[in-house]
């Protein structure tokens, strides 16, 4: 099982590199390749999950290799697999699979056809890395890939002014999140004096011991993680990028605000939950951010005159509720909520598609139909 997990992580990266060398003119090959790669990935995960369930849901931790070793520090790549990873990877694989199917025809003859598909593959590689990551350092690599590909996908129509401007907005806000993670890593090195894995912080005794001695450090790390999560999940005060991300072509916006990218902030919180769940102040802050965003997002959404913005703000509000749920330690409930929201927001996103120069007919449909 460990070997297959490693393969699952390497697979999208490999596919991405191969896709760079595919001929630009051959749309069938490009989309067929991506479709095949993501499809195989999806079904492998599905099979693996069944096997994993039959094994009785063991939690796995794989230490891969060290990047830098010295006497008192060891930077290493580490993977982790539990039910959170299972849910996120399955949903990610399924939605990406659908996006590739959808885009095959949708983007036909679009000048950036190949660019779109290899960016999606790279995005997916980053996503896989994040959800399988076993420590903050590994997660950060995937996190950065996601930031970059998000920027590229939002700015897909790079000859138009607005998408590019909005992409920069997304990029800038994501950077704030990145800084949050970097500072969290820095502070945790000071706290633990080692490259701590997610597996280790499951140990309540250990966490408790360290936090007692350095409660300020502990709080600082939690706040930094929360900042990163807020930026990624478009929570207050970073909500504005989400409606802006809509400027991109539909399939990518479907990935973003509908489903995958925005839920990764939540993922970060769930992953690091054993660390902050005993800090009352951190929990209050997470809950407050969540409930405040939910209220604000729901109110702003109500006055939007475009359905796409309404969906974006509704999504922000739902994620706010998920933040509240994790703050109340309903971790599995939030996970369930994520899965439902990812799918539900995703469907109308396709319906209300918005492609380059074409104008959104749904906005005027209520006028035309009597029903």
């Amino acid at each position, binding site marked *: 099982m460990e070997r297959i997990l490693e393969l699952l992580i390497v697979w999208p990266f490999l596919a991405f590199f191969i896709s760079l060398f595919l001929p630009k003119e051959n749309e069938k090959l490009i989309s067929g390749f991506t479709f095949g790669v993501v499809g195989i990935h999806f079904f492998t995960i599905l099979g693996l999950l069944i096997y994993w369930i039959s094994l009785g849901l063991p939690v796995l931790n794989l230490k891969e290799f060290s990047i830098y070793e010295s006497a008192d520090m060891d930077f290493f790549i580490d993977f982790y697999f539990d039910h959170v990873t299972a849910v996120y990877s399955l949903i990610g694989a399924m939605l990406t699979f659908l996006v590739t199917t959808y885009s095959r025809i949708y983007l036909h003859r679009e000048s950036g056809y190949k660019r779109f598909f290899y960016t999606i593959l790279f995005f997916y590689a980053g996503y896989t890395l994040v959800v399988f990551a076993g420590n903050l350092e590994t997660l950060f690599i995937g996190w950065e890939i996601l930031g970059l590909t998000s920027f590229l996908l939002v700015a897909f129509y790079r000859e138009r002014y607005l998408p590019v401007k909005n992409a920069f907005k997304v990029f800038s806000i994501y950077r704030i999140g990145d800084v949050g993670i970097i500072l969290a890593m820095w502070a945790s090195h000071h706290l633990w004096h080692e490259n701590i894995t997610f597996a280790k912080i499951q140990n309540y005794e250990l966490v408790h011991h360290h936090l007692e001695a350095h409660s300020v450090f502990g709080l600082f790390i939690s706040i930094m993680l929360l900042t990163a999560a807020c930026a990624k999940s478009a929570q207050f005060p970073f909500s504005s990028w989400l409606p802006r991300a809509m400027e991109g072509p539909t399939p990518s916006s479907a990935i973003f605000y509908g489903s995958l990218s925005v839920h990764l902030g939540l993922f970060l919180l769930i992953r690091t939950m054993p660390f902050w769940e005993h800090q009352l102040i951190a929990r209050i802050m997470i809950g407050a951010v969540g409930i405040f965003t939910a209220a604000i997002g729901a109110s702003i959404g*109500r006055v939007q005159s475009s359905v796409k913005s309404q969906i974006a703000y509704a999504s922000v509000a739902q994620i706010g509720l998920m933040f509240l749920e994790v703050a109340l330690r309903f971790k599995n409930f939030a996970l369930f*909520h994520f899965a439902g929201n990812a799918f539900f927001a995703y469907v109308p996103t396709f319906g209300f598609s918005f492609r380059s120069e074409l104008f959104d007919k749904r906005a005027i449909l209520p006028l035309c139909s009597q029903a």
Partner: protein
Amino acid sequence: MNYTTNIFKVDNVLHHLKHYLPAQASLKDFIHHNTLHAFQDRKFYDALTQSSKIFGYKTSLSLMEYRDLFHEGKISESIILKAIGEKKGSELPEVWFDKMLNGAYKDTFAGRRSHLRNNWKDLYSVDLDLAIQPFLFRFLCSYLDQGIAIWSFPVWNKGFLTTIREMERNTFISFFKTPRAKQLLMDRKCEISDLLAILVGDETLYEHYLFDQQFAHPGWSGFVSVVEDMPQTLIDARRISLQDFIIFELLLEIDTLDQKFGENWLPLAKRIKGHVEPLFAPVQITEYHEILHLWQDAYEWTFYDQVLGGILANPEKENTSEKSGFQAMFCIDDRVCSLRRYIEEIEPTAQTFGTPGFFGVAFYYKPMNGKFSMKVCPAPMNPPYLIKEELDNKKNKKDFHFADYTHSLFFGWLITHTIGFWSAIRLFINIFTPRLSPATTLSFRHMDKHSRLTIESSDPQLKEDGLQLGFTITEMADRVEGLLKSIGLVKDFAPIVYAVGHGASSVNNTHYAGYDCGACSGRPGSVNARVICYMANHPEVRQILRSRGLDIPSKTMFLGALHDTTRDEIEFYDDNFADVAQTELHKHNKKVFMQALDLNARERARRFVTTSKRHDLKNLHEAVKKRSVSLFEPRPELNHATNSLCIVGRRALTKKLFLDRRAFLNSYDYSIDPEGNYLFTILSAAAPVRWYQSGVLLFSCG
């Protein structure tokens, strides 16, 4: 400070502005609109050149494009020479020909518009459009919103500026970032001329400035102008005027400049050096334009030449005298011309006719459970009749995903936990096998097949929404007579005469608004087809017609139908014949229709880039049906944009002729219309509408 001098008169300028702005109404009723309507009193080529020079419109292909067409063999040399001969006389045609092919010209459509206002960028380094437009449009959208937003706009019935004032007074945050603009708004002293005095400062330039400003977003301004003049184009009426809109935009401009420079900046006119060419100064027609016009002439005539050649060579000059198997009336629409060809090919005894798809019956239609009556006749008509759909237990299916309460916090929360998962499964299936859903706009849902229609008026005094409910017997007879005589169907009636309207279905095509029947105000023609058949079958109507010399045999039945042009399906209405022979005949004819529809789908599929042509006939038709309901198919079927002909005459002229779905075919028989009355009606009402329609779609798609 109130400037009312002679040079700048606000009312005149607004009038002038409204005249030139595109009159784009909301897509409620079909819009027949010449985008160059302000120039339509001029000669064709003058209008093209002037509008291009003044507003920078691209009104023809570019020189390079024409030359490429020539090299591809799509423009014929002999016709070029003929065009030169007609326009330039017969002297030295080679000189002109050489210029057309090799002459060096600046190939551009740049116009004078925005020259004045661009100075903000050049001299002040401020991009006003960039700073203002995103907010302005969003605000206007919210103000005009027709029910997309869950909470509607707080104050909307007092007029645009009054609303802004009231909101400004009652909220904590301001529309403006600096005090002067707010002051101007609240003091109620802001006339357009006052604001222009601050911004421009030279009255001779005011008009030019306003044109520059409003033509920076002609669609929005044109829309505002239409809503001001015709509030009924919106279902949920909004009070707005172009004047208010301009004032608000001018205030935002002052605000933006104040924010950058404080209140001490010079008006535009003070810093411009040199002369600004007036927008409407006479336009010189240069040699470059003449060359373009020659190319266009030659291009058009190359096409007409082929069509006329085809008509000349067409062996069937007269109607065959043998008895018709069945007769069918279709819309004159270009999409129907191929279907008619296939029907006649499969069933040589069938006879087809073309007439505007509302079949001469103009009325409003209110479906069961409908909240509004909708127009189902050409948009310029305002008929005083209403026909209602009646049906027991009609329910409109709903789709949870498109209900607005899913966007609210708590319902949304509840629903994501439940239906979210069902969505996933459904989406998964739908992406792989697209199919009909409540989100599909399906032409057959326009009117339920099993419904009753209130066609016959029991009492002309009976009114609903101010409209007469149904038609009286005489009114019916007039309409049937008018229709049949205009298409020349007055004798040799077949046992069944079909009236086939058309409509379209789509789930996600952005061009859908242009897909339905234009003669029915952009709606499916099913109701009209059914109504005209009811009228023509009515015994009392037939009696009146007989007294007017139009004898329809009692065995002849009229039968309504709807052809879905995106799915190539057909639905027949009221097809329960008492007569067994007729039932059999109808059964046979149905097969003809089905076969013709398969072939028609194949012909259309030639132009669908993503539909594989390797399927056999049936599967290809299935692929075409799938295309109409697939989420990921935003590419249009260009339809009217490729329309280039309108032929008014007997079908014998064009029978068997492949016109590539590019022709409007209106049936007409000169021999029964010696005074030309029907011809006059066809040409004066229907034809210009058609030409506009193709023009509009050509300009918007092309």
